């Protein structure tokens, strides 16, 4: 089923630089393989929360590349703040992962 995301959230001043990699096929519904056309299957919604408050509510089409990346910047962040990411795809599959904001390099 849905596999863990890789989330990096690092503090740059008072902003958290958030970089998210997700494992998802993001099938357009037009790709052909030896066994036929692969059905459309893609993440439609990604919600990013900062300490429980939604900071980004994304809607995607099947044009987002496979194994998607999402980068954003969260204002007013502190070390240890929780960044939580939830995606939902067109089949209703979901995945939620969470990290704490860490010190930037």
């Amino acid at each position, binding site marked *: 089923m849905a596999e863990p995301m890789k989330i990096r959230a690092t503090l740059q001043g008072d902003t958290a630089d958030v970089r998210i990699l997700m494992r998802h096929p993001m099938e357009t519904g037009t790709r052909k393989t030896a066994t036929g*056309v692969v059905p*459309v299957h893609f993440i439609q919604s990604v919600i990013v929360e900062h300490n429980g408050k939604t900071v980004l*509510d*994304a*809607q995607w089409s099947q*044009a987002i*590349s496979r194994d998607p990346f999402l*980068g*954003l910047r969260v204002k007013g962040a502190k070390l240890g703040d929780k960044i939580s990411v939830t995606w939902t795809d067109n089949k209703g599959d979901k995945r939620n992962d969470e990290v704490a904001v860490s010190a930037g390099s």
Partner: protein
Amino acid sequence: MKQLRRNFLKLSGGAGVAAAAAAAGLLKAGSAWAAPWNKSAFESKAVADALKGLGATNLIESKDITITAPDIAENGAIVPIAITSKIPNTQNISIIAEKNPFPLAASFDISAGSEGYVSVRVKMGQTSDVRAIVKADGKFYTAVKEVKVTVGGCG
């Protein structure tokens, strides 16, 4: 029904249609707390219809929007695109790859807790203008950048 079905086929041009329709139904049940997926905008084949779906009218060209993307993408399967909006009170950033079968690729609602910045990767079938639409204080702003797509590989 027949007519409807034909329209559907025309829309998404392939066997994925039935699945897409079924999926749209599933979605409603699955994500009560997220804003509903903007079906009309995402399933538009024309840029104008996608804009209508977003409610974007009277677009204002803005230099406060920066599109960071390669001039030439080596591989249309994974084209990195980042949008930065310096427009105060940016509420939404949407990305449109104008020549894609469904031009609207992504739409981000941005709360006050987030900077006007998003970065994603998009599939692009061919060289195309990439358009950013920014909604701020109820107005719609736009910027555009061409990304050349060359077919990768030596085949």
